[in-house]
């Protein structure tokens, strides 16, 4: 005989119990029904239509907590300023890509919307922060690990009690390692503010070695807190531990800034090193040749609207040709007749610089022209939370080294380079060996000017392009050439980079204006001791 006297009754009771429990679950624990969510949204929309930012803040909270399936999309649209109120029928609409409009609540595509009747729902900075937090909270439950990771990272640093509870709940279910780590770090940072010193100590242990500035700020406050000495000591230890790393990264950063400033100086000066070095010609129009290169970039962008990368790459050879041709013309028409007369050359080229500036003002515009950067040039490369390198400066440093290498190859490996070096070392001997020095002069000037044009392309990505662009760089170019040694490419490279680094090292201490003055004074003193510069030309006849 079976143990259970009434087997059918048992199962029936069990299934009845199960059903009752399910019904109870549905009725009492389901947080929200579809009608509740829609009602919340409708109330929120009414609040959004007003002018008070406080009301709009309440609306954002309502939308976030409503649990409606479209709440994330509505909040994202509000953040991007794509949420509008239709003045005709008081509906709230979302603007999609492609200028389509959909009803915010139902999602149906609307036809024939009169754009003039739409009033954008404006937000301010505080609302933006609030919406981002709300979106991050919604993202915590996303099925994608990368989305969850981004949400946790964006909320790190300001995790309140409610979010802490949510984080702990997510931690229990989380399987992705990176997200788990991020959750632990965020919780540890929040626990640094806990009332219990034991919790604080554990939290400090967990964040030791982390360079994040928010953590450092909290540790600094804990160190000052004399009411909890054990915590203060632990905080001080943690801070001392990362002190060396912080100094190291700060030095790297200053070095990077200095190298990027220096690479700009090198690019501007390297053309001058050749013309000044080979022919001893003081070319005051060098800055304007740089400016012509920058304007060539602008014109290429105008010719090819929408193709920023292609136009930028094509602008490099174009600028070389434009400025190089301008240089050859200047040499053939003016400088050729003034060899051996440096003062007259200086005056004549100064006049040419004024003519070129006015030419650009008349033909194009006296105001600055906009040159856009391609997408890959914006943004930063984050090495860690204290060291971030901007992409545009990284590319400029690489570009400078490329140009330098190319120029060295031209000078060392080509025939023209050989002749240029011969003429610059000993003109009379070179002519005796059959080198046509007049032709070499013209080509050298063209080469130097062409490089100036290429420098202009690089500068157009960093600074304003206007007729006065050349004036800002001519003095610096001469400084670099004189400091580095005339006629020597390595001198220009080392001189330019070191001047850039020196400028950036001084800047935080003395301010931008005084830093420049100090660098100039230093060069003057250096030239007194070593008039030929860092790397003077070798040879008995050199430097005559």
């Amino acid at each position: 005989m079976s143990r259970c006297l009434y087997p059918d009754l048992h199962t029936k009771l069990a299934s009845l119990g199960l059903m009752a429990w399910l019904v109870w679950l549905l009725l009492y624990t389901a947080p929200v029904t579809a009608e509740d969510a829609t009602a919340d949204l409708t109330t929120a929309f009414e609040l959004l239509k007003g002018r008070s930012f406080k009301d709009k803040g309440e609306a954002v909270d309502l939308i976030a907590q409503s649990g409606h399936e479209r709440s994330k999309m509505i909040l994202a649209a509000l953040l991007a300023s794509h949420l509008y109120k239709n003045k005709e029928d008081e509906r709230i609409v979302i603007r999609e890509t492609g200028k389509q409009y959909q009803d915010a609540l139902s999602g149906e595509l609307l036809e024939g919307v009169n754009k003039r009747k739409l009033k954008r729902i404006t937000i301010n900075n505080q609302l933006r922060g609030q919406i981002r937090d709300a979106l991050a909270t919604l993202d915590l439950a996303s099925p994608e690990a990368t989305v969850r990771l981004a949400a946790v990272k964006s909320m790190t640093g300001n995790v309140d009690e409610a979010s802490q509870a949510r984080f702990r709940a997510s931690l229990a279910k989380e399987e992705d390692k990176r997200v788990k780590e991020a959750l632990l770090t965020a919780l540890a940072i929040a626990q640094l503010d806990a009332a219990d010193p034991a919790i604080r100590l554990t939290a400090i242990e967990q964040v030791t070695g982390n360079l994040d500035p928010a953590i450092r700020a909290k540790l600094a406050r804990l160190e000052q807190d004399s009411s909890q000495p054990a915590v203060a000591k632990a905080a001080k230890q943690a801070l001392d531990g990362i002190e060396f790393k912080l100094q190291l990264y700060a030095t790297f950063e200053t070095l990077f800034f200095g190298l990027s400033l220096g690479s700009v100086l090198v690019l501007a000066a390297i053309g001058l090193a050749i013309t000044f070095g080979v022919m001893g010609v003081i070319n005051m129009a060098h800055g304007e040749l740089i400016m012509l290169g920058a304007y060539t970039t602008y014109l290429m962008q105008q010719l090819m609207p929408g193709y920023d990368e292609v136009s930028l790459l094509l602008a490099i050879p174009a600028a070389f040709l434009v400025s190089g041709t301008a240089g050859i013309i200047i040499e053939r028409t003016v400088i050729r007749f003034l060899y051996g007369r440096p003062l007259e050359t200086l005056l004549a080229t100064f006049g040419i610089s004024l003519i070129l500036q006015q030419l650009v003002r008349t033909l194009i515009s006296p105001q600055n022209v906009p040159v856009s950067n391609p997408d890959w040039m914006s943004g930063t490369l984050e090495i860690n939370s204290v060291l971030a390198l901007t992409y545009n400066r990284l590319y400029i440093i690489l570009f400078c080294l490329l140009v330098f290498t190319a120029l060295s190859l031209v000078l060392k490996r080509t025939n023209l380079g050989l002749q240029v070096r011969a003429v610059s070392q000993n003109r009379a001997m070179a002519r005796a060996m059959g080198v046509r020095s007049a032709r070499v002069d013209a080509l050298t000037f063209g080469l130097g000017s062409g490089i100036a044009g290429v420098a202009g392309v690089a500068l157009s990505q960093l600074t304003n392009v206007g007729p006065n662009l050349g004036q800002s760089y001519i003095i610096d170019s001469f400084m670099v050439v004189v400091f580095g040694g005339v006629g020597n490419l390595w001198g220009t490279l080392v001189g330019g980079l070191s001047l850039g680094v020196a400028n950036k090292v001084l800047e935080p201490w003395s301010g931008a204006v005084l830093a420049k003055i100090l660098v100039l004074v230093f060069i003057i003193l250096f030239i007194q001791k070593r008039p030929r510069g860092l790397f003077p030309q070798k040879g008995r006849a050199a430097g005559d």
Partner: protein
Amino acid sequence: MKPLQAPIKKLMIGVAAAAVLGISSLASATDTIKVGILHSLSGTMAISETTLKDTMLMLIDEQNKKGGLLGKKLEPVVVDPASNWPLFAEKARELLEKDKVAAVFGCWTSVSRKSVLPVFEELNGLLFYPVQYEGEESSKNVFYTGAAPNQQAIPAVDYLMNDIGVKRWVLAGTDYVYPRTTNKILEAYLKAKGVADEDIMINYTPFGHSDWQSIVSDIKKFGSAGKKTAVVSTINGDANVPFYKELGNQGISAEDIPVVAFSVGEEELSGIDTKPLVGHLAAWNYFMSVDDPANDAFIENWHKFIKNDDRVTNDPMEAHYIGFNLWAKAVEKAGSTDTDKVAEAIIGLETPNLTGGTAKMLKNHHITKPVLIGEIQDDGQFSVVWQTEEEVPGDAWSDYLPGSKDIIADWTPPISCGNYNTKTKKCSGQNY
């Protein structure tokens, strides 16, 4: 004919011709009233000032369509001082002595205004100055239609402190008199409100500065100490473009560290991509986005005149609009373009501004203006997030600097002085 009659005939024809020419040139000289326009059309400030020249041409054109002033047509005289401060003084002298203009509308940077101040006082000319400035000045010959610090800088700092909860401050400016004086006032104001020394960072850069890497990185570090930080920017001219670009490149968003600028308006933003700048702020007395019928009409006229629907309007343009209208009213009230008569007639006159209110010319040569704070949108326009209910009267002498607290400017008799000390009852005269 007798041999002597031919040359005499020629002589007489010549004299007659000269007389006719002379009379006609005299006639045309008295037929127009000349108005000088002294704005940089090239150089580092051209980005801001060129549009003001165009605004003046439009206002003069409209006034001529209404029949001119005192029955005569207005004739604009445009000169280009090219962002060169000594050249401003030369061009001002040229306008007053050679062209004999009745009034000059011009200048932007305070250094340009300080350069022309001695010229206007020596030659007793009239200057209408349309740009926000640092105060600490009031001249018999200058009418300041731009904001004084109490109409722009102080309300902006109040907004950041009270509405945003800012606790750490970066005061970044270009290295000349306006940012230096404004920062002096703001530093005194912040300290009076209890902000500690280590929570204020002050920084100056030259005009046209383009390498913002280390400064922006310092701002980032200063702002990551756990307290809400904001940047108060008095950076002028085209240095703003690489500054904002660097902020965007280093990932500083307006929600982390908002930047409120005093010299950046729709015109400076019109050439750059403002998507990375959304949320950064500016404090002015007018924005193109203000919803008002007078503003709509002004913008429509402007687009028709300049034949370009993409051109924007900004606060200094509204200041010229107000200044020009006040000047025209004063000329008609005085019945003459003589400087002293116009200066006397203009005090107390009112004219509508473009945000739905009225601007009144006060005894200290400043006007009443509302204060608006706007956030940059992705189309280069501003969305107003805060404004005063009433117009604020301009105060030339800041109440927060110990040397200026007791000084007032009052050009009406019996005081008739720009720097009158109410405690010692003495007029200290203009200090250049």
